[in-house]
């Protein structure tokens, strides 16, 4: 085969490799999320977000955005939910929490740990999803009744994921 004159080779940097492996781990955790049975439809532990938080602390916000978006698309492909309503909800929640995490860079690290980021990002995820549902899927205010119980589940998940992610970051820093 002749080489095309426009062919270009892309060099993957060390950070690209790290982002790819974190995204792969996030996709695997996303499968675990999907497999865990849940008492309420829509309630998930959100373990995949541990990798987003880890990327945020070790590689920065841009890497966290990459890891998260790769995870959303990758998990959508594996679960067969690509471009279904569930996928858009996942993407909407991810974008909302990434935007908030971007804003949270302003929080001084001396007083706020990963747990704060996790808690806030989790609630942003929920709000982004509910907003999408309210605007496009179920355009009635009645769905807001779901908010308090979902927010409670989100709070618990946010603490758990934040603690797990800080353990990982501490272990990573020791190496």
């Amino acid at each position, binding site marked *: 085969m002749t080489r095309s004159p426009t062919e270009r080779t892309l060099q993957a940097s060390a950070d690209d490799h790290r982002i790819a492996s974190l995204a792969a781990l996030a996709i695997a955790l996303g499968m675990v999320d999907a497999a865990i049975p849940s008492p309420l*439809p*829509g309630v998930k532990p959100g373990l995949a977000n541990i990798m987003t938080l880890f990327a945020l602390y070790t590689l920065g916000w841009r890497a966290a955005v990459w890891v998260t978006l790769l995870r959303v698309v990758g998990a959508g492909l594996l679960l067969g939910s690509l471009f279904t309503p569930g996928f858009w909800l996942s993407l909407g929640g991810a974008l909302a929490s990434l935007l908030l995490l971007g804003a949270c860079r302003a*929080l001084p690290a001396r*007083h706020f740990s990963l747990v*704060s980021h996790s808690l806030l990002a989790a609630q942003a995820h929920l709000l982004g999803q509910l907003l999408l549902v309210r605007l496009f899927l179920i355009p009635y205010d*009645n769905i807001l009744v779901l908010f308090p119980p979902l*927010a409670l589940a989100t*709070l618990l998940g946010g603490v758990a994921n934040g603690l797990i992610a800080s353990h990982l970051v501490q272990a990573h820093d020791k190496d």
Partner: protein
Amino acid sequence: MFKAGDYLVLLALCALLLAAFLQLGRHAGAASEVIVRQNGMETVRLPLRLNRLHVARGPLGLTEIEIHDGQARIRRDPSPRQYCVQQGWLRRSGDIAVCLPNRVSIELAGPRQAHDSLAY
């Protein structure tokens, strides 16, 4: 692991959550009117804020619908098994009492109609 700010964030979120639960308890399923149907057709809508007795005539006789203190019930009905009467007071939007033999039903409705079910 936890730093001072984390407790602050956690506390703030807990407070918001509590407020959300209280707000939900106050507004959930608030109903504002009763829809009366005969033969499946809506015949009249009665506001829940006015106490009154409404009588609907069906094929078996008279069905009495009572509205009291923002609640509604079938007070009397000629149906043999009295299911709709035994249902008692209806309070929330979407609650329904059906007197099938006499072909009368009442349903509470809010400013916005609640869903029968949600499928994910």
